[in-house]
């Protein structure tokens, strides 16, 4: 009767998983979680936060990732504004450094600031 004895097909164990975030609400609420759960408790060495290249490159376009870091030492010919941004800002006649705060504040959400106040 039971002829439903099917073979399951073997699949590779996924080593990475790609998750696209379109909304801040999809972000995890704590730092031990990554979007979509890229946490592996069974990798050698225990739990790791794993990102593949494509995901990392995707994060590059977030506004936060584009602002110059605070306290970036000025080393001539070494630390410099990114060429793309330079062009944009130069167009507006602004120095890149003047823009540190603007994109930053736009990226923060109300909830976050409250959380940070508690710290």
């Amino acid at each position, binding site marked *: 009767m039971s002829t439903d004895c099917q073979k399951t097909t073997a699949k590779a164990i996924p080593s990475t998983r790609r998750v696209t975030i379109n909304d801040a609400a999809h972000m995890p609420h704590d730092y031990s979680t990554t979007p979509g759960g890229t946490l592996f408790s069974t990798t050698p*060495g225990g739990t790791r936060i794993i990102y593949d290249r494509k995901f990392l490159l995707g994060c590059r376009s977030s506004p936060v990732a584009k602002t110059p870091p*605070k*306290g*970036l030492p000025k080393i001539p010919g*070494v630390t410099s504004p990114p060429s793309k941004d330079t062009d944009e800002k130069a167009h507006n006649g602004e120095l890149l450094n003047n823009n540190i705060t603007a994109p930053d504040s736009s990226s923060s959400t109300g909830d976050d600031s409250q959380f940070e106040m508690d710290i």
Partner: protein
Amino acid sequence: MNNKFDALKDDDSGDHDQDQGSPKDSEKEKAEDEDKEQNTSKKKMVVPGAGEHPLQYNYTFWYSRRTPGRPASTQSYEQNIKQIGSFASVEQFWRFYSHMIRPGDLTGHSDFHLFKEGIKPMWEDDANKMGGKWIIRLRKGLASRCWENLILAMLGEQFMVGEEICGAVVSVRFQEDIISIWNKTASDQATTARIRDTLRRVLNLPPNTIMEYKTHTDSIKYWRTLAPHTDNLCKSVRIDVLGDDESREGYLYVDSHCVI
């Protein structure tokens, strides 16, 4: 929002300097840091910003360049190496990376180092001293892309060797560029093999690419052989010698043979 995190960092300031390294190293590092405004306060706890993607480890970017024309014997490797900054999240990484020149565009004799926070890009650091590195020599024109792929793999924990990875270096030299990845335990063959295989995969190397594994103790011995007089020099002095080493060209760190 950054300011709030800076406040956090301040709370935690004090002893950035890891227990590793000699006291002298720490002093030196501190002195150097104080020169750079702001740096001390943001040293230890860099934390991911709200909504950012945390990394498994915090990392620090370093830059070094051999000063041309200076008498090499007065050069100190540690003085020549500058911290660019530390980050804890993917976004923070891009902030630094996007504001740094690509290694292929560096001039002269320069290196970028990206090491886990708390590990100095030096053989003698406690995390490195039993370790070694895979090195790959690249013909000119490939360094920027390979470096990016290498560090993305490192930050994204693609190597799957637990705590073993210490950091990565790209060295711009006259005729070629060199990238290397350092790990803690040179004698751990399973680890070094896994790193090698991951390197091949993430760098998409042609099958005939030569990859070399060097232990740091060998590197140190090599320099001592070339510069036997260094026994007379005190700690932290590096001697210029003839020869070429990928990341440490021209320097020798004299560790325990200090005779002042």
